[in-house]
């Protein structure tokens, strides 16, 4: 009796298995495979190839000098003053852009969370920079900093910040602020939108309850708004850090890394090495170094995220 039931159950099970396999193992891949193939061929395979390049000498300008060189590229990297400078600039660029983007973005989100006339139009207009192609934002700001056609040097001079109206993009001490300004201009809407979404998800009853309890507007902000936004802020800031650290377009277009490498960050250094010098081996070594740094950062990020997202 028991054996009987058992066999009938198993035969039913195997047949159900077959349709189970079709529906749960094969069918999803039918919808997924084009995406997977493209990502695999265009991103993952080149990624592995790229890592292997970093152990080779591949410079298109020296076609007879190719081959495996072991850690030679990395050794060169270690002694490369430009690399360490670029690393330092990467930190300056990322922290400078990020903190300004965040503060201005938070202000804008708080502003958009209140009511005023013409808010819809205002919102559309202040978000516009996000839609401007990056190369164009970069060019526009480069032009604004140009004393011939741009007003900024003259204004900075009038404010007493510059001794004379010159182009700060040509000044090694100040040049990095050019791309940072452009990046802030371009990135504020992103922060404002994400923070606004988080703000709007705070139940208004909380503010009403706090008001009943006698909280001031400032107390409402520090005791309700900020704690509620904290997880969103943390995650957005952390992901954004990676994105900005990788973001070379602004710098490449505005300064090309100059003057005297004072604005060169790691990702723009990768690009100029690959594009100008056509030295793929060395460019890949820099890229692997950057990837390593980002991985360390991502691990920390995931760890913190786990601590924060308890829901």
């Amino acid at each position: 009796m028991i054996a009987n039931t058992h066999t009938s159950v198993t035969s039913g099970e195997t047949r159900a298995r077959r349709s189970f396999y079709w529906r749960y193992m094969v069918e999803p891949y039918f919808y997924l495979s084009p995406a997977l193939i493209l990502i695999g061929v265009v991103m993952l395979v080149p990624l592995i190839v790229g890592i292997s390049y970093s152990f080779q000498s591949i410079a298109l300008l020296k076609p007879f000098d190719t081959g495996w060189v072991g850690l030679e590229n990395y050794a060169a990297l270690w002694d490369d003053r430009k690399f360490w400078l670029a690393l330092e600039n990467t930190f300056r660029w990322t922290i400078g852009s990020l903190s300004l983007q965040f503060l201005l973005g938070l202000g804008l989100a708080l502003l958009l969370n209140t009511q005023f006339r013409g808010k819809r139009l205002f919102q559309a207009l202040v978000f516009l920079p996000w839609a401007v192609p990056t190369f164009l934002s970069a060019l526009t700001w480069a032009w604004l900093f140009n004393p011939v056609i741009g007003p900024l040097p003259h204004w900075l001079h009038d404010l007493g910040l510059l001794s004379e109206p010159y182009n700060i993009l040509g000044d090694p001490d100040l040049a990095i602020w050019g791309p940072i300004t452009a990046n802030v201009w371009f990135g504020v809407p992103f922060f404002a939108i994400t923070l606004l979404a988080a703000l709007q998800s705070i139940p208004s009853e909380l503010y009403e309850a706090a008001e009943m309890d006698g909280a001031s507007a400032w107390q409402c902000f520090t005791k309700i708004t900020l704690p509620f936004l904290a997880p969103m802020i943390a995650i957005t800031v952390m992901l954004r850090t990676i994105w900005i650290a990788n973001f070379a377009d602004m710098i490449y277009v505005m300064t090309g890394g100059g003057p005297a490498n004072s604005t060169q960050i790691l990702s723009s250094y990768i690009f100029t090495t690959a594009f100008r010098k056509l030295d793929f081996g060395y460019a890949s070594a820099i890229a692997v170094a950057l990837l390593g740094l980002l991985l360390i950062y991502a691990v920390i990020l995931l760890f913190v995220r786990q601590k924060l997202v308890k829901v």
Partner: protein
Amino acid sequence: MARMEIKNLMKRYGQTEVMRDINLDIKDGEFIVLVGPSGCGKSTLLRMIAGLEPISGGEFLIDGLRMNDMRPRDRDIAMVFQSYALYPHMDVERNMGFSMEIRGDDKIKRKQRVLEAAKVLGLENLLSRYPKELSGGQRQRVAMGRAIIRDPRAFLFDEPLSNLDASLRVEMRLEIARLHKRLGATMVYVTHDQVEALTLADRIVVLEGGNIQQVGSPLELYERPANRFVAQFIGSPTMNIIPVSPAKNGVTLANGTKISLSDMLDLNAAAELGIRPEHIDVLPYGTGDFDAESEVVEHLGSDTNLFVRVDGIGPLMVRVHGNVPNQPGDKIGLRFQLHNTHIFSADGQSLGQRITLAA
């Protein structure tokens, strides 16, 4: 029409078994209600019948034909969803005729059938509306119309009334009962509301923790619950459960009161006594089996609910028919209707119902 057989049905998600050894025969034209608390597996069972959820083991047959591997579209079963699942981008007419559209029936035939069904449900003036322009009750009707139009072998309902307000729910409940009577089709209905179960079902299946607890007609479940779970789940207000210890020819309550029961019981371990609030009689103070003090009195008009406290036993609920003048703080006497008491063993199984008075 359809007869359904469920044999040793099993459901697994990954390694976790959520249902095991479900056996159920549904007769042609029968109205079966699957009832149980949320997470008991009733919806999963319904979805396995529908073909929306794969069956991990066992067999499901309709009219003797194995259905396990059949796609939902090939089973010829209609389903009314809790959310109604009306297609928001189609008007009522197209919503109702969608199955015929898929089957490739011609437009004139479609229109005619839709109109017929719409008349039955009082929807003929709403055919060109979109779902978002309908009220909850109207949406519910469209969902039913969409099912009727196909003339399927069986109907499945997944908590169809839970999104309606109370008065509409009563109305639609009647509508479904009428529909069943008119069509005579096999229906399987999932709900967590025992009133719906008791009023609609030919037979009720009580599920809990992925197991069938009891199958039976509404009255059977009310009068002879197979275990403590069914006893407490069916019937409102909930049955009182009181711990008892065995005694000669009966049981003893914690306050020392002895309840004499028939000799068919042979208790030798601690057990529980179950009694429904409507099966406790209220008597003047000192004249019952024991005394109690009422704490809260709820006047419902047709009935009165008394929440009383009994020394040594704790709180009990008593329901008295009609209005009684009791006030909180009143001392009263209580007596159990012995033929309506239930005894459950320590593991919750019923040891006997309708116990007759022995001494």
